[in-house]
């Protein structure tokens, strides 16, 4: 009450003070004694509830008759008018106007009888009539005055009682409102039209961590807000001044510096003239709410990211007891279903309808099995998507069972496994292709081996030649493997083929543009270059310390009809002699290259050194010439 009184603005403290003053006066009245006390008692008697009419009139008659008898005994020789007058006044005052009139009538009759005994006996002289009438009129006037006084007293008493009741009610309401304000955890503030703080509820001071309201009283309220909250507070005040209510969410620190989020409702308090004369601001601490919302938002965002990043088509939740099947928006969109229906529940039949007819029975069996068993569920099947095509997907979920084994819920996700299945299919094809190539390579190795053995003079030579040829085949394979067996770069191929023979860049000089060759052409060229280099090392330019080999190639023209030339030219070797026996090497060089390149391959034993020239259509040697890969 103390705080309320101190901090309550406007009418509050004033009315409370008024209430206190009244009680003080009542107490003072009660304590007064003496004359005032007598008057007070008379007043109390006057305004007290009156007895019934019979009692009032009986009592009035009794008093008047009593006085008349008293007069006849004590003052027989004396008319004694004065004895009746005070009685009539008292009767009118205490018992009311009616009893007063009766007393007046009776007293007048008594006075009349008294005059009958006085000369002229038995009748009333005109003078006696006049006196009697004057007596009656006087008493009548007195009675009227007394009744008027009495009515005034009663009215005063009634209004005082009602005033007293309304004051009590006001006090009770004040106490109620004050306790409501004090117990509210909202920060309820009253501001003047300039936005200065004039009042803050007790509960509000707690949440705002205000230890002394005087420290903040009169401070401009918008200054409590930081960043965008300040502008919002100023705008809300301006609105309230114009009679509008508004609300906003902002950040403000408490007086102890604790940062908090608040929801603030600002509304005008209207004065008697209906115009805003103060402003009410109610702030609610929503920090915890915002934090939980933020956490929920972060979680939802994580889920969204996870769903968007993976091959997840959508998610579903099947409430089994109510048989309500709900799906998320992505699910609905993918299958051309109404997203609103997805949130409310989609008939399972509508979902099953999209499953490929060949997969429906197996799917139903898998679902039934999962529901019976509980736990994890994964099943792959084809489903018709929005574009009308069937796509492979994997449903991946979990059936939760109640302790008694009843199925409760069945949530899960749909995974797009088109790519996975395509990759698996691709892998299968690649494996087949690889096996095919491996067998081809083995067939080539087999034929190279057989031809080497066929032409070898002895086992030792055969072994050496075969090993070197297999190394050359390996070099070609390396280049082809790097290009996934699709093509081979000529320069790399030549370098690999000739590297085992050494002195690359010194005695073996390469020059030519970038050319991409067919795999089989590549294999035969590597073997041919290997044979040429082996030959040069045995009998040609690489058999001494001075000879060189120049390998040059070029492409003349463009497109498939362009010509590809390759020249192997030896210089500085020992005197050249044409060989007497043409073995596998030379056969391979000329015949196989002719066959693979579809052109001419010529070996010339010129005096300065061996010259090998290859001339072919570019379209037959390079990619896209129709040779099998």
């Amino acid at each position, binding site marked *: 009450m103390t705080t309320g009184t101190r901090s309550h603005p406007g009418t509050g403290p004033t009315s409370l003070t008024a209430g206190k003053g009244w009680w003080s006066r009542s107490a003072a009245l009660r304590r007064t004694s003496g004359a005032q006390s007598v008057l007070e008692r008379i007043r109390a008697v006057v305004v007290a509830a009156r007895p019934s009419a019979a009692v009032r009139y009986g009592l009035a008659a009794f008093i008047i008759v009593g006085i008349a008898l008293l007069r006849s005994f004590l003052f027989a020789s004396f008319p004694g008018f004065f004895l009746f007058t005070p009685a009539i006044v008292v009767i009118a005052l205490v018992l009311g106007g009616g009893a007063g009139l009766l007393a007046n009538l009776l007293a007048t009759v008594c006075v009349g009888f008294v005059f009958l005994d006085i000369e002229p006996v038995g009748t009333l002289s005109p003078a006696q009539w006049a006196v009697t009438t004057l007596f009656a009129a006087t008493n009548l006037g007195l009675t009227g005055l007394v009744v008027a006084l009495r009515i005034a007293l009663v009215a005063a008493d009634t209004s005082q009682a009602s005033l007293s009741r309304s004051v009590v009610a006001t006090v009770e309401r004040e106490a109620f409102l004050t306790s409501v304000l004090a117990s509210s955890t909202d920060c309820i503030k009253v501001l003047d039209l300039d936005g200065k703080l004039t009042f803050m509820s007790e509960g509000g001071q707690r949440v705002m961590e205000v230890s002394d309201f005087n420290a903040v009283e009169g401070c401009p309220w918008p200054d409590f807000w930081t960043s965008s909250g300040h502008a919002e507070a100023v705008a809300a005040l301006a609105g309230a001044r114009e009679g509008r209510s508004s609300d906003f969410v902002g950040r403000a620190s408490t007086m102890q510096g604790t940062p908090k989020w608040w929801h603030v409702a600002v509304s005008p308090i209207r004065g008697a003239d209906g115009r805003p004369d103060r402003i009410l601001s109610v702030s609610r601490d929503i920090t915890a709410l915002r934090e939980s919302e933020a956490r929920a938002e972060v979680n939802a965002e994580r889920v969204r990211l996870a769903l968007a990043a993976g091959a997840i088509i959508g998610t579903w939740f099947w409430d089994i007891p109510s048989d309500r099947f709900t799906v998320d928006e992505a699910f609905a969109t993918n299958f051309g279903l109404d997203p609103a229906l997805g949130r409310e529940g989609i008939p399972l039949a509508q979902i099953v309808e999209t499953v490929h007819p060949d997969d429906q029975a197996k799917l139903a069996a898998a679902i039934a099995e999962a529901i019976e068993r509980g736990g994890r569920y994964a099943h792959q099947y084809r489903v018709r998507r929005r574009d009308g095509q069937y796509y492979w997907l994997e449903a991946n979920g979990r059936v939760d069972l109640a302790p008694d084994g009843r199925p409760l819920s069945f949530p899960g996700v749909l995974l797009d496994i088109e790519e996975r299945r395509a990759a698996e299919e691709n892998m299968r094809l690649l494996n087949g292709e690889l096996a095919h190539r491996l067998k081809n390579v*083995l067939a080539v190795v087999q034929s190279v081996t057989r031809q080497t053995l066929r032409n070898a003079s002895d086992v030792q030579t055969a072994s050496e030649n075969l090993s070197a040829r297999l190394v050359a085949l390996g070099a070609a394979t390396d280049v082809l493997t790097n290009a996934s067996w699709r093509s081979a770069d000529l320069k790399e191929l030549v370098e690999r083929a000739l590297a085992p023979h050494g002195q690359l860049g010194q005695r073996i000089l390469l020059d030519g543009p970038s050319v991409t060759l067919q795999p089989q052409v590549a294999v035969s060229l590597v073997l041919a270059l290997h044979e040429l280099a082996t030959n040069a090392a045995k009998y040609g330019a690489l058999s001494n310390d001075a000879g060189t080999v120049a390998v040059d190639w070029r492409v003349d023209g463009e497109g498939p009809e362009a010509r590809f030339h390759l020249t192997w030219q030896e210089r500085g070797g020992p005197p050249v002699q044409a060989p007497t026996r043409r073995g596998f090497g030379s056969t391979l060089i000329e015949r196989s290259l002719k066959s693979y390149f579809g052109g001419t391959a010529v070996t010339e034993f010129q005096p300065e050194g061996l010259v090998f020239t290859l001339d072919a259509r570019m379209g037959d040697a390079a990619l896209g010439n129709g040779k099998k890969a």
Partner: protein
Amino acid sequence: MGQSTPIGSNTILIVEDEALLRFDMIEFFEDRGWRVYEAERAEQAIALLDRHQNIRVVLTDVQMPGSMDGLKLAHYVRERFPPTLLFVVSGHAPLSANALPARATFIPKPFDLHHVLRQIERSPVG
């Protein structure tokens, strides 16, 4: 070439685009006294068959460039030259009997030429 040899003679047509393999097979059969014709593709093979009616054995690879692969060639040979002995070679998985022409033998790559030769020798002449 061009000399006439009666049916039942040792005359073989080898259809293989891979020169290294083809040379090996040619030498193998020539070393054993066979008359050998060679073709890189089906079209060449058909021309040779038309020209040399005495060819008794056709050994063809399945994978070949051109509009006609070895399998189609085998069917063509069976139809046009019914008595011919047919060997179909492939590095791919074995072909089903349905895919092959009648009385054709499938040989997976790589294969043993001696084994093929024994099969030819066991076959009834004609």
